[in-house]
């Protein structure tokens, strides 16, 4: 099952002894402050985990995949995640079977 905010808060309650309300709030604020930084043009660097970078994309030609109609993809700002060395190394070691 996927990791969610509720599961993260539960861990903080169990391991750190924060009360349930505090644990829930800090998890919520953790993600909100990352969103805040990004919407203020700041990239976010979480050492050992990875960086959230911002990129401005120019308008480019696109197509409606259903109708084939040509429609421009408007200029936009996007978030990209670059995993750090430590996270990459941990994940690379995962030997699970991949599904096609």
């Amino acid at each position, binding site marked *: 099952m996927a990791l969610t905010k509720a599961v993260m808060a539960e861990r903080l309650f169990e391991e750190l002894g924060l009360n349930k309300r505090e644990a829930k709030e800090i998890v919520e604020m*953790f993600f909100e402050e990352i969103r805040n930084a990004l919407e203020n043009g700041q990239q976010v660097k979480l050492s050992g985990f990875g960086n959230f970078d911002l990129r401005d994309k120019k308008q480019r030609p696109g197509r409606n995949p259903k109708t084939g109609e040509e429609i421009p993809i408007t200029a936009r700002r996007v978030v990209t995640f670059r995993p750090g060395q430590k996270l990459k190394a941990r994940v690379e070691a995962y030997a699970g079977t991949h599904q096609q």
Partner: protein
Amino acid sequence: MTKSELIEILSQKQSQLAYKDVELAVKTMLDHMGTTLANGERIEIRGFGSFSLHYRPPRIGRNPKTGDSVELAAKYVPHFKPGKELRERVNESMERVEIQPG
């Protein structure tokens, strides 16, 4: 924004918690997220985004120094897909703020 700046902001906003507690909470959350991915499981944070693993098939690479070819095993890499709220908030900020260098 770095991890320590994030901890600083959170501890100012959660003034009933000691700085050390906030620091430990952030480290625990990031460790939990890393362990989840290392176990091949997904992370789903509504309004923020989801993290999953993408498979990279085995390939023949080259040693850039010697030019020798080397067999590289299949592996997984972390992948992040921003959620709707994050995508919209970041995109709407484009006209308001420049991306800060560094």
